[in-house]
């Protein structure tokens, strides 16, 4: 370690104030603090000791929680690939390696481009390198289809980091979730590569088996609603039997964005986030609750077969679980008051199902629901805080 410290020490004189490369000082500090917890000490007044947790560790906890989704996503990309081309005896390893071969480049582009933008801003604006992108960099690939062109990943990352975050002042100041802003950018700018039935399954240069369809359950639903057919009955005719069984949906061996398909993996991540106190269980629970309640309301109103899809299916299809666990809980863009978190989460769930069922243009609703509620989170908080102030005023005057 001494060696590494010496290396950094030898760079230090060149980036200190007044030195030739002083502009790069923040980059130097940022990299040093990745290897070494800095030697900063508390001031002469104020607390003399500080908690062992810092933002780096909090962000790292989120990354740990995302790893199950990432690994499962890699396997599932391979799994879907071999299913589609009709290879039934592909091994676990070959599926995983094929998937990793698709996913890793996306991950590398996301991190590479994102950190590049981040570093540039740090140097220009002379602010320290912040940890927010550590999480964003892994979230972006996980909400993309495996077939996404890498240049689009790069574009989306640049857009997300600059427009959603840096223009507001960096990590902690953003209004919208950065990773979802990146995805929304692609969704509206290049819809054909991120929506439709053909993007979810990576085929490579192979040919799909006869009858193959890359449709997701939600696109079945939208089609059934448009054509007036029976949705749940239609699922039985899917080219691959059992694909849309409830438990298969729950496990996540289905087409979809890389990290979003497995509710099980999301719940493992949720467990890590909740046990470590990093993610708000109130938000996670209320997103699921909101989606289920709205699903029930549609069930009761039921005028087409999509509306009649059992409410609990809403919890296991699409990106609801991933969004609830990893996107809605982003502490910066979520509601910050405890009461607000319940309302915020619940509304995300409700809106997701409304968008799914009532807006045929967008088969999945979680992304827009979260972005929408990100915008409303400060308003929710405002009313919660106003109520708090009123209560305070009351008790003070008794």
């Amino acid at each position, binding site marked *: 370690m001494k060696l590494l410290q010496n290396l950094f020490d030898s760079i230090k004189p060149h980036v200190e104030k007044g030195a030739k490369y002083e502009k790069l000082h923040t980059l130097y500090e940022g990299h040093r603090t990745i290897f070494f917890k800095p030697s900063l000490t508390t001031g002469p007044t104020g607390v003399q*000791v500080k908690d062992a947790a810092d*933002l780096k*560790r909090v962000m790292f906890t989120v990354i740990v929680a995302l790893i199950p989704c990432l690994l499962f996503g890699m396997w599932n990309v391979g799994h879907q690939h071999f299913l589609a081309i009709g290879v039934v005896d592909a091994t676990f390893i070959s599926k995983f390696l094929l998937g990793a071969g698709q996913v890793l480049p996306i991950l590398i582009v996301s991190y590479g481009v994102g950190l590049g933008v981040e570093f540039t801003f740090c140097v220009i604006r002379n602010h*320290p390198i912040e940890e927010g992108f550590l999480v964003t960099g892994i979230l972006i690939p996980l909400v993309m289809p495996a077939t996404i062109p890498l240049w689009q990943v790069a574009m989306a990352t640049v857009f997300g980091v600059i427009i959603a975050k840096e223009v507001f002042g960096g990590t902690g100041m953003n209004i919208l979730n950065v990773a979802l802003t990146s995805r929304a950018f692609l969704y509206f700018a290049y819809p054909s590569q991120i929506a439709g039935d053909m993007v979810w399954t990576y085929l490579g240069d192979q040919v799909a088996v006869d009858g193959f369809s890359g449709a997701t359950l939600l696109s079945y639903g939208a089609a059934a609603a448009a054509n007036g057919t029976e949705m749940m009955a239609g699922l039985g005719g899917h080219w691959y039997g059992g694909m849309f069984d409830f438990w298969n949906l729950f496990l996540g061996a289905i087409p979809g964005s890389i990290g979003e398909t497995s509710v099980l993996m999301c719940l493992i991540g949720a467990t890590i986030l909740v046990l470590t106190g990093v993610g708000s269980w109130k938000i996670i629970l209320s997103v699921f609750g909101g989606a289920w309640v709205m699903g029930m309301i549609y069930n009761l109103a039921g005028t087409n077969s999509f509306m009649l899809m059992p409410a609990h299916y809403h919890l296991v299809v699409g990106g609801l679980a991933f969004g609830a666990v990893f996107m809605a809980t982003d502490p910066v863009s*979520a509601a910050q008051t405890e009461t607000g978190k319940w309302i915020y989460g619940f509304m995300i769930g409700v809106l997701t199902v409304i968008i799914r069922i009532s807006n045929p243009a967008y088969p999945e609703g979680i992304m827009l629901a979260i972005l929408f509620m990100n915008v409303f989170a400060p308003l929710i908080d405002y009313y919660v805080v106003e109520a708090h102030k009123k209560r*305070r005023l009351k008790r*003070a005057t008794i």
Partner: protein
Amino acid sequence: MPQTFHLNKGFNIPLVGRALLEEHKISQPDSFAVKPSDFKGLVQPKLLVSVGENVKAGDPLFFDKGSEEVLFVAPVSGEISEIIRGERRKIIEIRILADKKIEYKAFKKHTKTDINNLTRAEAIAALTAGGIWPSFIQRPFGVLANPSDEPSAIYISAFDSNPCAPDMAYLLRGKEGVFQSGIAILSKLAKGNIHVNLDASEIPSVFSGLDPVNINKFSGPHPAGNVGVQIHHIKPIGKNDKVWTIDPLSVARIGTLFMEGTYDASKLIAITGSEIIHPHYVKTYSGACLDKLVAENFKKTNARFISGNVLSGEHVGVRGYLGHFHNQIAVIPEGDEEEFLGWMLPSFKKLSFHKAFGLFSFLIPKKEKVLDTNTNGEQRNFTISGAFEKILPMDILPTYLFKSIISNDYDEMEALGIYEVIEEDVALCEYIDVSKNDIQAIVREGIELIRNS
């Protein structure tokens, strides 16, 4: 019937080095100092002595331009050896080279009947002249109380819940009589009750049978012992309220002043912290230089000497002086070294309120830990939410309060509770903040903004 308040929120920091309840004889320090900065809300201290003058314990050293009758007095007799000044000639320390045998200025002695017959004005005159007045702190704002105000109540927190805090009953050993006399004087000052707030788990004899007081009991983790938190639960204060707080030791000093006619600045100090070899109590006087108090009783490591506790104390160094309100010295390791991947590696030793990945201290919450002064990370924008709310046992939204101060929003500060907090009340928030902001400094800034508005 005492009311009991159970507080659930908070956090006890299990620091290595709690003092054993035994007094260790030391040779007294030669040097003592009075620091105007110990007293918040002073306008401009004006010196009454000059270097070379001899003073007795109780002789005035300076007064404040804001309230000229309040005298700040010498804790010991001796020669004014030095007056340390800072920028713009601001007085930092008035140092006294102490006599071997302390001589006391003689104030008027009172019998019990005299005390009963004292009027409020006479009591206040004796307190301000006798040097005790600076121990009266006004809430809101945590500033020096104004003798011309009449507070609606006076609050005394009779226990300290800070890390390795001294045992209040031990500090007051043998002072039961003067403590009761002190209470009798206090009862002349306030319109309403004198509240003595006790730790619910045990009632030391010094606090039993007091009259006339209102006893309240508090249970729960730190900051249950903070008087601000207690006031919040007993009777919250707002913009137009004024209450005073005073520490138990000063109440005993009031008793001594009236009964024996002396300003007795002697006190027991808990010598605590992981770098202390034998954590115990020593007897000295307010404003003592730390060097003789710890003497050879510390490990010869790179250590930090703190007057007060590790949450709201002050880093003064081994040649620094004890703060007026401090009954404790904490000596802990400096953390000025880098740690390879220190932000990521798992550990049972590192104490954290959070349970973020790899911080397992929550599994062994009672295990005492060595904490150093490392900040464990760099300063960032406020990012995570909900943590301060979990640790502050007050009906206040801390994050919103802090943000309103940062954005200088006076109306918001008022509505969100700036009147109810001072630095020590939010010290735990500062401790647990993963974004490593100086929250106590932020709160003081907010208080000064409101006071001067």
